[in-house]
Every structure is written in C-alpha cells, then in structure tokens.
C-alpha cells in the first residue's frame, strides 16, 4: 500500500516539475537564457534551469518519501527521485513531440524551432529519448542528494550557488577586472568567458567554495573566539578598518566599473531614497500610499523648472539651490495630499493616494499644463550640478558655463546620490528613535489607543506624509539631473508599486531592509539584462516567495520580527528580574 503510495507521489511531483519546465519554455526563459553560459561549452543557463527543475523534483520526491516511510530507505529514495525525474522528462518529451507536430507559435510565440532544437540537443525529434535519460539521471542525482550527510550537502549547494552567482554577474566582474592592469586582467580572461564562466573558472569556483565552506564549518568557532578575545580597542579598530575598506570600495567603484555600473548604483540610491520616504508612511506610521511617485515627479519637475536652460525653465539657478527648493515643494504637496485623506484609513487610503499619483502624472503630461510643464514633450536641458560658480544665463538652449567642476557623468552624480542616501538613512534612523517615531509606531499599532494616549493624530500623520514626500522629492531631483530631462510618461504607477514592493521584500519599517530590497528588486534586474525581460514575473515570484518563506522581510526591523516570531520572543530574560 505504502509503496505504491510513494511512487505515485513521486510521479505527481514529476508531472508538476514537467509543467514548470514547459512553463519556463513557453515564457521564453529557456531560450533567452541559453544564450548565457553557466560554464562555457558545458552547460548554458537555460539548460541549467531545466536541469535544476528535474534535480529539484528528484530531491523533493525523495524527501517526501522519507516522510511517508518514516526514515531514509536508500532504495526507495533513489526510486522516488528516478520516477520524479523520469516523469519530468516524459512531460517535456511529450511537449517536444506535440509542438513539432502542431504549430503552437500562433499562440505561444516562444515555441520557436530554435527552442525545440535546444531541447533535443540539436537532433530533432529523433533526439527525444535523450530528454528522458537527461531527466531520469537528474532525478536520480536529486534523490541521491538527500542521502548525503548534511555536512557534505551544504558545501555542494554553496558551490553551485556561487557558480550561478558568478556566472550571472560574469560580465560585470569581467568589465571591472579587465579595466585593471596586468595580472588581474589575465585572471579575468582565465576565469570568465564573454557569456559566463570558463571551464577552468567553473572548476576553480566550485572547489574553492567547497574548500571555504568546509573550512568555515570546522574553523568558524575558532575565528569567532579570536574576535571575541580581542580587547575592546581591538574590536573598535576592526570595525573602523572594515568601514574604511567599505568606504574605499564605494569611492573607487565608479571609476573602476565605468558609467553603466555607476548609473545602476545611482538608480538603486534613488529607489533607496524613495523607499526610505515611503517607509516613513508605510513602515513607521502604517499609512499605505500607492501614489508615491507623485512626490518623485514633483521633485523632478521642480528642479527641471528651476534649472533648465530649455524653453520651460522659469529660473536658471544652480542645482544646489534648486534641490532644497524641490524638497520643500514636495513636502508642501505631501501636506496638501495629507489634509484631505486624514480621515481615510486602510484600503480606502490606498485608493485615494493611488488617485493622487495618477492625477499628478496626467496633469504633468496634459495639454492643459503643457504651457508650463511641456506636456508630452517634457522638460529638457536640465543643468548639471557644478562645483564652483555658474556663468551668466545667455539664452534659451545655451547651457550656463560651469567655472569649476561639472558633475555631469553618472560616475559623478553617483557621489551625490550615495551621499543623499546615507544622509537620509541617518535622518530616518534618528526619526524612528525620536518622539515622533514613537507616535508613528503607536498610530500604526492602533490609531484610537494612540489618540487616547495623547498623540496628536493630525500632526503626526501630516508629518509622516510631508517627510516621506520630502525624501521622494530629493530622489526625483537627483533623477532629473542624472537624466537631464523629464517626461510625465516616466512617472508611471509602476514606480510606486516598485517602491511598495521593495519595502515589503526588505522588511517593513526597517531601514537596512529598504537598502536590501532596493538592491534585490531594482539593482539585480538592472544588472542582469536578460532577466529584465522577465522582471515582473520574477517580481511576483519574489514577493510570493518572501511572503511565504520570510514574511517579515529580508532584513526586518525588530518590532516586526518580534511580532511574527512571538514564540521565540516569549522567554523571560532572567537578568532583568532584579
């Protein structure tokens, strides 16, 4: 009875994995990713996806069998893994046969001959049997993997992860390293190919990681002891040293890595600014705002109007004067939005703010405001920041001359963005610890009780809107300067959604969480060009995964962590009973 049971279970898992494989093919991931290599001439990224699906199916089936049969029984586990892998292969093989007979392309654009070629290892329908072998072996490997002891399993998983990571970012590392001289350049060419890792590189990373993991698990205690034994002064200097090292990397990065990386970092910083702003509203005060892009737009347009040498420039002041004004204007609008929606709570607040965001975007792009804001033509010719004095304004379409250093390139604006993000993060941190931060926290927990404790709801809520808007306004101002032009069409609702998503993924109310969220959701898709096609698919997947696996976010704040892990917080610390 039980035996049939686990085999049927494995077959089911195999069928699901096969369906996932077909899905990956249909959305075009397999084909696009197969242009990238994990290890050159060995396996492409697209193939790796399918392989990983079958191995995972084998592993899950094997683990499920252990649950069903209560304990590991090597033969059953291997059998379960093999069946799961075989059926994954069968589903994929059927898919190949079916799509070679019936033209699916009318509906599924991604079922190209190239894809079928790829799936059959370049042998057409005659090669279908290979899929079955491929799947079965992968499933068997997955099943066998469970039988290894965890101390062996972990280094292998780490090594595979490192290889994938290195392969995904190979172009990034390659660019940085090739720009250096001598040995580093040679090492780059030895380790990385144009599209992924070289075979040598793969081996080096694989065994390197295994070595490091094994060493770490055996030696971690000793190192920790060593650090703990350091005198107070030594610990401090260790921290100072690591901060200096980090600062050095941050300062040297743009020159070493070039404009593309610098621009990505600037965009991450802008999202960090917006994230920190919205974090005040959502994370601290619990006010869900879906129209946050409006403040970003207001900051950007204010800087545009104040510094542009194009036809819509009202003034032609310098960047340094325009930015504080932009922040103030955004703050003012934050207050203006706050007043009408003060009495609105929860879902209704989200809808009301959503409307506000759309109103600002539509107004900015409308013919009605085109006389002042340029309508769909936008505002162009935004003056770059200049350290030193700006020359006279001569005429429309002639930039003012910068007598000093002009910060025009992304590598230079990088510093402004990083400095702003640091400043605002510090400001945010101090705000959270302040009296106002407490008031926000009380409002988030329970508005009525907060009021009954003497918290001025109106004041605290308005301040949340205004400060949140100010941070976003600063982000918008830097964005306008970076790009040199603004168009209403870049202020889409999706920007607001992105900011909300990065806060949720990072951890609500957590300042480091915003940084982690921005890097994960904004930075990674920017760096991985191939992935950016599937940006929203991955967003959805990331959000669902985070919500299930780590509902408090990647780097949660203490309160949220305590709330979601009450059992762990419950024990009474004995030293406080005194």
């Amino acid at each position, binding site marked *: 009875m039980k035996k049939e049971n686990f085999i049927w279970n494995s077959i089911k898992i195999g069928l699901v994995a096969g369906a996932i494989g077909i899905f990956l093919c249909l959305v075009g991931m397999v084909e696009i990713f197969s242009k990238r290599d994990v290890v050159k001439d060995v396996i492409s990224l697209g193939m790796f996806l399918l392989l990983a699906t079958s191995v995972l199916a084998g592993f899950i089936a094997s683990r499920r069998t252990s649950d069903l049969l209560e304990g590991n029984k090597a033969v059953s586990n291997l059998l379960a893994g093999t069946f799961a892998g075989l059926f994954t292969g069968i589903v994929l093989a059927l898919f190949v046969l079916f799509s070679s007979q019936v033209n699916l392309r009318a509906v599924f654009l991604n079922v190209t001959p190239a894809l079928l070629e790829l799936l059959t290892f370049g042998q057409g329908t005659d090669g279908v049997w290979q899929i079955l072998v491929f799947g079965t072996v992968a499933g068997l490997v997955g099943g066998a993997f469970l039988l290894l002891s965890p101390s062996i399993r972990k280094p292998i998983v780490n090594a595979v992860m490192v290889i994938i990571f290195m392969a995904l970012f190979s172009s990034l590392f390659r660019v940085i390293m090739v720009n250096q001289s001598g040995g580093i350049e040679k090492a780059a060419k030895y380790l990385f190919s144009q599209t992924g890792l070289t075979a040598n590189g793969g081996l080096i990373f694989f065994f390197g990681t295994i070595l490091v993991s094994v060493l770490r698990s055996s030696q971690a205690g000793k190192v920790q002891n060593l650090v703990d034994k350091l005198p107070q002064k030594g610990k401090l200097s260790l921290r100072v040293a690591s901060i200096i090292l980090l600062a050095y990397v941050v300062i040297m990065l743009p020159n070493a890595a070039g404009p593309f990386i610098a621009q990505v970092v600037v965009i991450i910083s802008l999202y960090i600014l917006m994230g920190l702003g919205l974090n005040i509203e959502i994370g601290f005060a619990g006010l869900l705002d879906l129209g946050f892009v409006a403040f970003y737009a207001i900051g950007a347009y204010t800087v545009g109007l104040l510094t542009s040498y194009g036809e819509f420039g009202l003034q032609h002041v310098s960047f340094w004067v325009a930015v504080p004004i932009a922040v103030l204007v955004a703050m003012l609008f934050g207050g203006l939005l706050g007043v009408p929606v003060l009495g609105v709570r929860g879902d209704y607040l989200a809808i009301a703010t959503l409307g506000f965001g759309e109103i600002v975007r539509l107004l900015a792009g409308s013919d009605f405001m085109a006389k002042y804001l340029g309508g769909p033509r936008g505002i162009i010719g935004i003056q770059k920041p200049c350290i030193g004095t700006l020359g006279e304004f001569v005429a429309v379409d002639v930039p003012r001359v910068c007598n000093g250093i002009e910060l025009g390139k992304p590598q230079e604006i990088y510093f402004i963005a990083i400095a702003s993000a640091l400043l605002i993060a510090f400001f945010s941190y101090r705000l959270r610890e302040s*009296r106002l931060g*407490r*008031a926000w*926290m*009380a409002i988030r*927990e*329970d508005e*009525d*009780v907060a*009021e*009954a*404790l*003497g*918290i*001025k*709801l109106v004041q605290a809520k308005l301040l949340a809107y205004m400060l949140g808007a100010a941070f976003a306004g600063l982000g918008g101002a830097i964005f306008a300067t970076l790009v040199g032009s603004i168009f209403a069409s870049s202020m889409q609702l999706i920007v607001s959604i992105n900011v909300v998503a990065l806060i949720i993924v990072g951890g609500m109310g957590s300042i480091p969480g915003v940084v982690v969220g921005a890097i994960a959701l904004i930075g990674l898709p920017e760096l991985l060009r191939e992935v950016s096609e599937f940006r929203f698919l991955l967003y959805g997947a990331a959000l669902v995964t985070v919500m299930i696996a780590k509902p408090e976010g990647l780097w949660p704040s203490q*309160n*949220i962590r*305590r*709330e979601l892990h*009450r059992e762990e*917080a*419950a024990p*009474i*610390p004995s030293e*406080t*009973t005194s």
Partner: protein
Amino acid sequence: MSILNINNVHTYYGNIHALKGITINVEKGEIVTLIGGNGAGKTTTLKTISGLLQPREGNVLYNGENLGKYKAHEIVYKGISMVPEGRGIFTSLTITENLEMGAYSRDDTQGIKDDMERVFTLFPRLKERRNQVAGTLSGGEQQMLATGRALMTRPSILLMDEPSMGLAPVLVELIFDTIQQINQQGTTILLVEQNAHMALSVAHRGYVLQTGEIITSDTADNLRNDPAVQKAYLGME
C-alpha cells in the same frame, strides 16, 4: 466642586441614540462605578468623556471647564486618562516600551522614571517581564499593563472600561485591589463594569445605566441592597 460633571449628555452613533441625556457627577478622590448590561451605553459614556465621541447635546465639565472644545489627545494632557476596553495594548512592543508610550504626553524624564517605578510597585509581575513583548502576556497581565500605561500620564482621573472582562476570578480580585490602591494614592476613578458585584464592592457610589438612561444612582452599599439592582445585576432573587 466636583472633578467631573456630565450634564444631560446625548450621544449618537449616526442615527442611533446611544446616550439619552445622562447626568453623572464624580467628586475628587472617589471611585464611581457605572454598571449596566450590554448596550446600556457604558463605553459610550467613557468615549464621550475622553473626546473620542462628541455629544450632540449637553456637556462634560472637568473642574468646571467644558471639554467640548478639546480634542481627544488634548483631554489626555488635561489629566483624564482611559484604560480602553479590550485593553488596547501595543502587542509588538515590550512592556517598558508600552509604558513609555503612555508617558508620551510628558517630557519630565525623572518624573517618568518615578512613575514607572510606581507602576512596577503596583504590578510586580510587569517588572519581572519588562522586556517581554506585550502580545505574549496573559489577559490579566495585559490588563495590568493597560492600567499601568494609563497611570503613566499621571492622570487626576482614570477612566476604566471593563477591567474584569475575560479574566479569571483570582485576577479580577487582584485588579480590583489595585484599583483601590490607585485610588488611595489620590487618583479619582470612574469605573465601568458588567461585573456589578465586584464594582460595587470597591466603589463609593454607583450609577445604573439602562439603554442610554440612568435609572438609579446611590452609594454603593445602598445599591447593593437595592432589590431591583440585586435582581437585575447581582443575580440574586
């Protein structure tokens, strides 16, 4: 002059006439209780006093001053503090943080420290668990915390909404003992209760509320011996 006068107050929820002209006086230093069944308007009365609801007619005087022009948070600053029904503590904060939140309206650091010690003396159980998250406390401890938090505003009058709700009999007695202690330390108390027996045993005077109207009021002892009250609220035949 009484510390709190509620004069002919009518309060509505939309079109529902919840309080139909009630008049209550609370003298300084008293424990006054408001007893009555479900839906009698007890909580509505407290919400009207604390400014969370506005009376449509009538007024609430505090030391002779009309509270009508003040907002809920300003009333807290004046010295009226409420322990809300269902306790309303901040579940994800620790006990200490909850108490600090109670002192939100104050900025005298030393005074806050002293008052926190006072709360911990009243409720030693809270002191033991001061760094524990409030959501992990038992119902009785949460009630203690809510009471302690209200005391952190250093109120001259404390409004308590159903402190016995959902508590074990032992804890109910503990809470009511503490209410008496707080009162002896000089805080006037207006206590709303369904547990009329307990309420009348600690209070000086009581009011009986029924569907938004006061049907009788007297000293606690007299109410306890009133046959009508005994029958309706004390479960005696």
